[in-house]
């Protein structure tokens, strides 16, 4: 229900999706200038840039989605709605995931094109890495963004809290993707990182569902 509401607002205005998307593309370009020398990218640059772009635009999207709730004070209304708090969390999480999924659908082919990265060589492993990595990032991000809604200087604090906690996701995502994109792909290594991401997702979603209720109660 929460997801549907968020998606409906998003379809009407398309504000967050356009801004986030443009931001992600700009990110890719800025990093491309940093890592391309004489027309050739540094080894593994594609994987790194992909995940940095996801992390940065994810932070932006999380901030915007909850800012919208705060401006109209609708989060309070959502909290008063007759449903479980964990359901509210899951709804928000799914909304953020769909948004980030749209962003990834654009920037992954873009990076493949610009860095000659063979992104479609192992489509299923690649897609699973992206999905599990994004879930891990958004699971922690949604919880912190929701709790920061009432805090001062929330826009600065979100990345400060989010990045140290999600470092394992970034490491696993980058290493796993890099293993797939290197000239001789190393699928067992990519699968190992994938299993670690799955494990991370399980632990952190459980923890988030567990702490969401006491943390959001005043």
């Amino acid at each position, binding site marked *: 229900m929460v997801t549907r509401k968020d998606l409906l607002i998003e379809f009407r205005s398309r504000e967050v999706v356009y801004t986030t998307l443009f931001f992600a593309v700009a990110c890719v370009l800025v990093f491309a200038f940093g890592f391309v020398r004489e027309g050739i990218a540094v080894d593994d640059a594609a994987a790194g840039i992909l995940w940095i772009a996801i992390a940065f635009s994810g932070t932006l999207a999380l901030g915007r989605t909850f800012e919208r709730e705060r401006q109209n004070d609708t989060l309070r209304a959502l909290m008063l709605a007759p449903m479980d708090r964990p359901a509210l969390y899951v709804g928000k999480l799914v909304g953020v995931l769909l948004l980030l999924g749209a962003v990834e659908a654009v920037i992954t082919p873009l990076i493949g094109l610009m860095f000659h990265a063979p992104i479609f060589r192992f489509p299923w492993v690649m897609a699973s890495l992206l999905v599990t990595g994004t879930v891990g990032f958004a699971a922690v991000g949604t919880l912190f963004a929701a709790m920061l809604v009432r805090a001062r*200087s929330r826009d600065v604090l979100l990345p400060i809290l989010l990045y140290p906690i999600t470092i*394992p996701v970034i490491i696993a995502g980058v290493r796993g993707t890099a293993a797939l994109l290197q000239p001789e792909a190393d699928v067992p290594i990519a699968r190992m990182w994938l299993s670690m991401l799955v494990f991370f997702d399980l632990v952190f979603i459980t923890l988030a569902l567990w702490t969401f209720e006491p943390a959001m109660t005043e």
Partner: protein
Amino acid sequence: MGVGPTRSDKKMTKLFTALLIVTAALFAYAPFAIQNAPYESTMGLVQKIFYFHVPSWIAMFLAAVVCGISGALVIFAGRKDADRVALAAAELAVVFGLMGLITGPLWGRKAWGVWWQWDARLTSALVMWLVFVAYLLLRKYAGAGSEKLSAVLALFGMANVPFVYWSVNVWRTVHPKTSVVMTLQPSMGIPFLLCSLAFVGLFAVLLAARVRLEKVRASVDELYLSLED
């Protein structure tokens, strides 16, 4: 809330003073103990930093565990006093972590030839330290209601440690193993034990002092409020 010191307060003060004296004595004696310890065969003088480096990380981990447990008490039991302990422990984790992060590269420059290695132990220690810095920033700038948020952060930080460690462990490790500590000969082991006790004592003394300060501050706030009514 009582204004004057109660009997248990007096007892705590006595205990605190005793601990303070013991810790001060240990720290005063530590340089002599370290000087008398034999030189390590391959590293020589630089190895002596180990007597302060490892104990500062021991104190840091102690602080981290105290902070995590108090954080859990704040969220799930709604304990106000646990929050004061968590804040004090987080501050100490940053201080002791900084000591470890400064002494580590000093040794690494001599032993490895570089200040920093992207090594499992180093990276996970750095990330953990960053989590506690973030904790303090949150406490300072998030305004009212930051206790619960920071408690959740402490809890997530705890859960994060094994993942960071695991994820960087796939890279090679050049940091000496922790098992080194168990195999020390007595001439090095005893000074090390002394230093560890000194750091743990320092941690306990600072924690107690900091918690007391917060408690007094809270009671002052309460007195102000009752005056205004």
